[in-house]
């Protein structure tokens, strides 16, 4: 018996009419992928499988796991990692970077405005009810002057490419975006399993992220020259607990739970073995609802009583600030190009995906009529929950979403089903095209800084468009090149 040492770049690989990140046509590799393709061609399938196992063991050894959010009893998983990296050209990244910076600056101007003068709501550019009626809008946080005017210190926006290779922003995550620990860890593991391949390219480092985050958090401290920064986690049951622990450790700051903190004399203190210690900045990974039982949900055991009042007095800084969820509401997302024009007088550098807001009667009619072609999303959900992919959905699901949209129009938007770009992805013993997206992380303190890279998420099921880790998605390392000279 002979084994067939098929090479990963078998000529059977086909882009199938999608935008393929690596191949411009069957057998024709894009120039910036040429070195990678050459390396892959020399590898035998068993060798790739061996490295794949080594990578998985490495993630397990580090405890890099997540638990699936809506399945509390569910098992801890490691996020499936695909060894074939995604490569982004330097010039392409420069455009993405400028577009994200523009977007994050505008979203912060918008947040400041709607929590202060509300200038934009006196125009007819965006319906006031849409903004002020958003679930993420917190009246309790009106008229607070946050340090440096920054509400969103950490943003994770999701980018996709369509069949023509055009980049779009699919959504913004402005509350407690997660996934950056995978960016750093995927790189560490990939460098170890593919040392030669990594050495072929000049890839911009992502390892500086924790230090950059710490710099941002220190920059927004209220007053202190040597601020104490902590990371507030909901605890080990949280799906992203690994990331909380990872970031706290990497930044050299304390990882705390609500019960470790208390408010006295309009200041937040941390219990330590040597008594109380004043806390200046809280990088909180707890949602607004659970942050302060005196102000929000009274039954929350995850928060700190008096935190809202203390932050209103600017005696502690929360990152991200309270009430940022209004700006990543998916119905308000539809207006981001309008906001860019209004606040900066500019056109958007990164386009939005065409979005139909069900709250608008004519757009609602369009959604109901074309539901089988559209992706319908709940405005406040993330993680691939509360979502319908029309072309892949059975008739009963279409009917259910039609009813949901009719019953709660403010709760839904719809977008055309995008032919997301694909990337060669290792499947058992060869490469297959799988749909991907990209979540870059944007830090905002004194300046906006986009980490060069991000989490490329892969829909591992053939044909699937859902990349979320909670829905069977995996991840790839994302290489942003230093320059395109080669």
């Amino acid at each position: 018996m002979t084994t067939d040492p098929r090479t990963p770049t078998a000529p059977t690989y086909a882009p199938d009419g999608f935008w393929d990140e690596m191949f411009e046509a069957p057998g024709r590799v894009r120039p910036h992928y040429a070195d990678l393709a050459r390396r892959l061609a020399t590898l035998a399938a068993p060798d790739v499988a061996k490295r794949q196992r080594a990578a998985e063991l490495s993630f397990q050894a580090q405890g890099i796991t997540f638990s699936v959010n809506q399945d509390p009893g569910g098992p801890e998983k490691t996020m499936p990692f695909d060894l074939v990296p995604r490569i982004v050209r330097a010039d392409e990244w420069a455009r993405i970077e400028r577009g994200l910076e523009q977007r994050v600056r505008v979203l912060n101007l918008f947040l400041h405005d709607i929590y202060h003068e509300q200038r934009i709501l006196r125009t007819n550019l965006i319906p006031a009810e849409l903004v002020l009626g958003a679930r993420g809008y917190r009246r309790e946080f009106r008229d607070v002057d946050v340090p440096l005017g920054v509400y969103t210190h950490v943003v994770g926006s999701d980018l996709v490419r369509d069949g023509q290779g055009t980049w779009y922003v699919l959504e913004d995550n402005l509350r407690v975006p997660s996934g950056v620990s995978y960016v750093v860890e995927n790189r560490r593991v990939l460098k170890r399993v593919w040392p030669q391949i990594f050495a072929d390219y000049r890839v911009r480092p992502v390892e500086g992220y924790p230090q950059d985050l710490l710099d941002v958090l220190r920059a927004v401290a209220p007053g202190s020259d040597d601020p104490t920064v902590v990371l507030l986690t909901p605890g080990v049951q949280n799906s992203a607990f690994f990331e909380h622990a990872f970031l706290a450790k990497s930044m050299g700051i304390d990882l705390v739970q609500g019960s470790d903190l208390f408010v006295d004399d309009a200041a937040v203190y941390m219990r330590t073995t040597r008594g109380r210690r004043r806390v200046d900045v809280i990088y909180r990974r707890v949602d607004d609802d659970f942050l302060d039982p005196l102000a929000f949900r009274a039954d929350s055991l995850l928060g700190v009583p008096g935190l809202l009042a203390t932050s209103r007095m600017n005696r502690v800084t929360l990152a991200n600030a309270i009430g940022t969820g209004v700006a990543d509401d998916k119905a308000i997302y539809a207006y981001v190009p309008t906001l860019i024009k209004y606040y900066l007088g500019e056109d958007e550098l990164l386009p939005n995906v065409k979005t139909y807001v069900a709250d608008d009667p004519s757009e609602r009619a369009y959604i109901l009529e074309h539901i089988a072609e559209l992706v319908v999303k709940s405005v406040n959900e993330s993680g691939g929950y509360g979502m319908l992919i029309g072309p892949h959905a059975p008739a009963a699901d279409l009917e259910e979403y039609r009813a949901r949209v009719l019953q709660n129009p403010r709760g839904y938007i719809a977008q055309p089903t995008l032919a997301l770009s694909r990337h060669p992805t290792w499947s058992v013993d060869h490469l297959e095209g799988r749909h991907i997206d990209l979540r870059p992380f944007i830090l905002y303190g004194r300046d906006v800084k986009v980490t060069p890279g991000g989490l490329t998420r892969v829909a591992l099921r053939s044909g699937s468009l859902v990349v979320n880790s909670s829905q069977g998605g995996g991840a790839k390392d994302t290489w942003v090149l230093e320059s395109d000279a080669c």
Partner: protein
Amino acid sequence: MEHRTQLAYSADIVESVMDARLGPRSDEHQRWIAFELRVEPAASVRRYNDGFGNAAYLITVARPHHEVDVVMRGQIETTLTDPFQPPRARPTALGPGDTADFLTPSPLVPSALELVTTAGPFRDQPAFDAVQSLMHLVHERFEYRPDVTNVETSVTEVLSHASGVCQDFAHVLIGLCRAIGIPSRYVSGYIVAGADPDAPKRGADASHAWVEAFTATHGWRGFDPTNDLMASEHHVKMAVGRDYHDVPPTRGTFRGVAEETLAVAVTARPVATTSSSGR
């Protein structure tokens, strides 16, 4: 005016954190001449403004203690002798923020079909008259009973009981006003009755609650459905919000294992009355 809140605990506790909205809030119809807040045992008392423009206080006691005694003393001048008289200058329209706050459902005043059907017939009246009609209606249909509701009772439950206290009466009237597009908000405050035989009586020995509705003719004016009266110089405001949930006079937490008992005492008396012709 004196408002005393006494919290007693069956065992020592630590880290009391209390958020208090006991005034002062001044506006065109009332002015706080004096205000003080005293807390026993020694406590930190820090003032801030909340998101509704109310003065709020964050009171903390970190050390072990078994009681917290908060006393507010204030002296207030009120000037609204004729609440039916429109203001001289036409009120400026509400901005989008206030409109959204006071026209859309809030945690304790969710939308309910019954509110819409009850208020519907009053939609065509001038708004100021409609609110008065609705106030009479609430006063007549609902029975004042202190034992059927609590501070977290929402308007839907109040409708089913058809009874409650001033807070519940206020929530129902707010819901009715909002149902026909009249912005309305919850007022937490006091009634100062004194010896005046015409003064409202209900709510005079405790903190009280009523409703402010905004109309194009009169601006914000107070409507007290518990007493079936327009708010006037007998009413003193502490704070306003969408509903009770935004403005409880005190709300707090502590750390420890103990039973908490709460006692509230309000005393208010008129100091002097200036004749209305003097102004």
